[in-house]
């Protein structure tokens, strides 16, 4: 599979993704899955200008990403797929059924969310969706940068790593 990392990060394209993960994984293409971004030429241009020239970026809404996932996965280049929220990744995983692991990279504080790690805040509904993913056989871990320890979902939800 050419997609080396499936990441949930509300910042979408940013330093940790492009440099922190992009360099050690030698990422050559990004798939940004977000319904809002995919529908806006301005948003797409904004993110396109943020990536280095050696990377290609594809934009897709969740439905398109489900349809085109096999094409991304058969790309011989190393790739990284990112969503900005748990709900989008949840829908993608349910639609594709070939995603074995999901990385929680950054889900920050908003009303209704409780702190689990310094970079992970979750609502009860988001917790439920992550539980469902693991129950379906998807490994869910939290890891902001490659040098950090991958924290398993039960440990994340316990909040013991705070």
């Amino acid at each position, binding site marked *: 599979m050419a997609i080396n990392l499936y990441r949930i990060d509300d*910042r*979408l394209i940013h*330093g940790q*993704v492009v440099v922190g993960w992009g360099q050690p994984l030698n990422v050559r293409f990004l798939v940004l899955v977000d319904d809002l971004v995919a529908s806006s030429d301005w948003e797409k241009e*904004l993110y396109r200008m943020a990536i280095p020239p050696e990377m290609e970026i594809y934009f897709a809404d969740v439905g398109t990403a489900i349809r085109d996932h096999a094409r991304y996965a058969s790309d011989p280049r190393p790739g990284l797929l990112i969503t900005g929220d748990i709900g989008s990744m949840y829908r993608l995983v349910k639609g594709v059924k070939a995603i074995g692991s999901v990385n929680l990279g950054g889900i920050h*504080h908003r009303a209704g969310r409780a702190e689990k790690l310094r970079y992970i805040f979750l609502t009860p509904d988001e917790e439920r969706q992550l539980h469902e993913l693991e129950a379906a056989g998807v490994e869910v871990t939290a890891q902001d940068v490659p040098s950090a320890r991958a924290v398993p979902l039960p440990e994340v939800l316990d909040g013991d790593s705070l």
Partner: protein
Amino acid sequence: MNDAKGGGTDQPRAIVVGHGEFAGGLVSAVGQICGLADKLVVLSMMGMTPEDIEGAIRAELARTGAKVIFTDLPAGSATLAARRIVHDDPDLILVSGVNLATLLDFVFNTAVSPTEAARSAAERGKASLIVVGR
């Protein structure tokens, strides 16, 4: 977020935003070298959502009247937030990839508008990158 201390009495002319302690460190260095750190406002974005970063930059621009935003990394969250802000206000200017030489040139160049000074400082910053050795 904190205002950097240094010499001078005018309002800050630019906001500096970066990862970790980068912005604070750069502005601290400006203060140490020339005492003009108070021409710059430091914004830390640690632990902030993109919306928070954008809101914090907008708030500092409104508070200080600054017309220039310096950010560290073209792919960074702060740069993306600043690009949204500059898109909305053509009187503002963003310089990404800031370094110490850029900021030093900027704070000394009071003969032109802050936006013109920022363009000039960006060129100085690019030229300051040198490689020595084989």
